[in-house]
């Protein structure tokens, strides 16, 4: 197998991966970087983020406010040292993006403009119309092109982390165009592989979001943290699951049920007026809004459509000029996909799986417990999001912790010894054999599409917005069963060049491993907190569960779930209050 020697291998070239790569290149141009991704960088799912990135900039705002909003939004499951570091650093990172050319929307006087976002006490969300993630991704990608030490391996599908003598020393990846496996020998590896919304049937996430980094880290013995916390975004287009940004509500859009009633006032978000009002009604946090939809649906207040039940997002009062300036993509998407123009019509929306709060356990330096392995972005859980991420904190997170992962990897690399080539070769051969076996086996009976659909359905049904012991148990059993059946998966395409059957198969394997950790973590957390709502344990239980769930790989058996204390520095757990007359 061809061995590619490098200093830092970065897997994933979305926002976090590119930011990490640039951080390494800026810190020390002599350090070689291999930036490995299964897609070209500009295809990464960062591009789909719409609304913006929160960072304190206004004179009436403070770092403490952003800290409090984030900790409260996460239902006190956030690590407060990480949140503090995050809110302190993000304004600088967003300014750096500005210097690199990010086309932030502006105020009349030429300053960067901000917009309101859910769960945020002050307007602090920087935005580039409704294509913020797209512009950030392209700005990072294009900026990265000027650094010769960043060597890209586009369309390389990573399969396994190499672990020798208790440290991570590389990664194997298949060159998709030739089908040949390469061994990247690296002193440090940074995982920036994003989330795994594709575990669910109805998601805003693109096809590539399949938890590949999670799967690799998990199988290498790194725990996956807080996996039960799955964010449903309240405003997805029915049918396709396409995201309509929280910016729609930030700009003043409202949610109404079948009677035209702003139902959020019945769920602790009111009163409805005056409007708009921060941290109230439609500008509440995503978990609460999605849960309110669930209740409205139970009450029969939603609107049945060919795509299932919906509520209506009403933006008509914003007017055409504002919608075109601030929300052009939303208009395009709604008009194309559901045939409703937000300027003149109500847009049908429903909650849709959007983001994974959980992920690879890291400390505030983005380091995992496995020396030499770092993680940042959605694939990591550092954790600043706790039980529910606030909208516009994830784009900031990928910058802050992407850069941090890069810089700490540089420090690590400077003193790390050369990896043991012989040990690597042996592990590389094992990784290769797992792929070869897929090609040569003759006893395959299971189909990728079938297992994927069964996984999707089991997760939606068992680990949705509301769960209980029975439903989560069903998801546990089903994912365990599917992992067994996956061993008999049948590869129907046996060719080498750009074999998407193979890649979908490997993605399915990763998703099944991760789905089982979600189901098990959800089953074992007997409380309701943030996005994890148990019908059989309706209250938050700080005495038992003010802790992170840590899912550890256990071979063919379900993961072992341990618990790790949450870091609390200055904000003691309290009741999450939204709405009211507060500003």
């Amino acid at each position: 197998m061809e061995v590619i020697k490098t200093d830092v291998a970065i897997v994933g070239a979305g926002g976090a991966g590119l930011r990490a790569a640039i951080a390494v290149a800026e810190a020390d141009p002599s350090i070689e970087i291999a930036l490995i991704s299964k897609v070209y960088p500009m295809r990464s799912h960062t591009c789909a983020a719409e609304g913006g990135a929160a960072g304190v900039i206004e004179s009436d705002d403070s770092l403490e406010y952003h800290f409090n909003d984030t900790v409260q939004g996460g239902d006190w499951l956030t690590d407060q040292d990480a949140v503090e570091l995050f809110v302190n650093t993000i304004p600088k990172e967003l300014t750096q993006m500005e210097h690199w050319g990010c086309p932030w929307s502006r105020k009349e006087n030429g300053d960067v403009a901000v917009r309101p976002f859910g769960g945020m006490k002050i307007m602090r969300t920087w935005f580039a119309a409704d294509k913020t993630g797209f512009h950030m991704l392209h700005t990072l990608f294009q900026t990265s092109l000027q650094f010769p030490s960043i060597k890209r391996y586009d369309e390389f599908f990573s399969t396994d982390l190499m672990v020798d003598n208790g440290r991570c020393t590389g990664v194997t990846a298949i060159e998709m165009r030739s089908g040949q496996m390469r061994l990247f020998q690296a002193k440090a590896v940074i995982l920036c592989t994003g989330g795994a919304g594709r575990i669910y049937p109805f998601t805003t996430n693109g096809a590539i979001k399949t938890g590949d980094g999670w799967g690799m880290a998990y199988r290498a013995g790194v725990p996956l943290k807080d996996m039960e916390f799955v964010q449903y975004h309240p405003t997805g287009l029915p049918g396709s699951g396409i995201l309509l940004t929280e910016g729609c509500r930030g700009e003043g859009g409202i949610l109404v049920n079948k009677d035209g009633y702003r139902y959020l006032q019945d769920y602790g978000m009111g009163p409805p007026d005056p409007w708009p009002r921060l941290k109230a009604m439609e500008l509440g946090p995503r978990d609460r809004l999605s849960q309110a939809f669930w209740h409205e649906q139970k009450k029969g207040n939603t609107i049945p459509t060919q795509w299932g039940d919906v509520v209506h997002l009403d933006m008509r009062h914003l007017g055409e000029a504002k919608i075109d300036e601030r929300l052009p993509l939303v208009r395009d998407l709604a008009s194309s996909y559901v045939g409703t123009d937000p300027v003149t019509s109500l847009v049908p929306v429903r909650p849709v799986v959007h983001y994974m709060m959980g992920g690879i356990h890291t400390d505030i330096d983005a380091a995992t417990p496995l020396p030499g392995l770092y993680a940042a972005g959605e694939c990591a859980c550092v954790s600043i999001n706790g039980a529910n991420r606030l909208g516009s904190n994830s784009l900031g997170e990928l910058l802050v912790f992407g850069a941090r992962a890069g810089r700490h990897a540089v420090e690590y690399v400077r003193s790390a010894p050369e990896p043991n080539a012989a040990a690597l070769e042996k592990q590389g051969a094992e990784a290769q054999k797992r792929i070869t076996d897929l090609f040569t086996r003759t006893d395959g009976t299971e189909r990728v599409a079938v297992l994927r659909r069964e996984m999707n359905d089991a997760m939606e049904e068992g680990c949705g917005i509301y769960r209980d012991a029975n439903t989560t148990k069903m998801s546990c059993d089903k994912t365990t069963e599917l992992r067994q059946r996956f061993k008999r998966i049948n590869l129907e395409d046996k060719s080498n060049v750009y074999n998407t059957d193979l890649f979908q198969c490997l993605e399915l394997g990763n998703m099944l491993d991760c789905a089982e950790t979600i189901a098990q973590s959800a089953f074992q957390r007997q409380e309701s907190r943030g996005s994890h709502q148990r019908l059989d344990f309706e209250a938050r239980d700080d005495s038992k569960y003010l802790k992170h769930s840590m899912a550890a790989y256990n071979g063919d058996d379900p993961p072992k779930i341990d618990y790790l204390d949450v870091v609390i520095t200055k904000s003691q757990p309290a009741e999450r209050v939204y709405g009211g007359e507060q500003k």
Partner: protein
Amino acid sequence: MSRNPYVRKMSKTTWFLTHGRYRSYILHELSSFFVAIYTGILIMGLLRLGSGPEEWAGWLEGVTSPAGIVFHLLAFAFAIIHTVSWFKVVPQAMRIQRGEDFVPGQLLVRAHYGVLAGVSVVVLILAGIA
């Protein structure tokens, strides 16, 4: 090893027939050929005018012959095509920002037609026709 990318070549001689937008492009290009010939004939006329009445009469006879008239009608049609297709793309090449907004493209197109009409009128007056 197993890669073998397949290159499809574009035909150098017939590519412009393969799509409507290429056909209109080639029509536009072709129209400039007629405009050029017309210009050549006109310049020739001027030269002939300078070389004496007989030369001039000969040229005049040529352009007023049936073939000459057919050519001029053709050239006029192509000149219209040329003008219309050029004016249509003016807003793309000419972006004028006033304050935050751009001057509407249609306004620029209309301004071009206005100037064309104005110049034509002046020419016709000078020629004593209008």
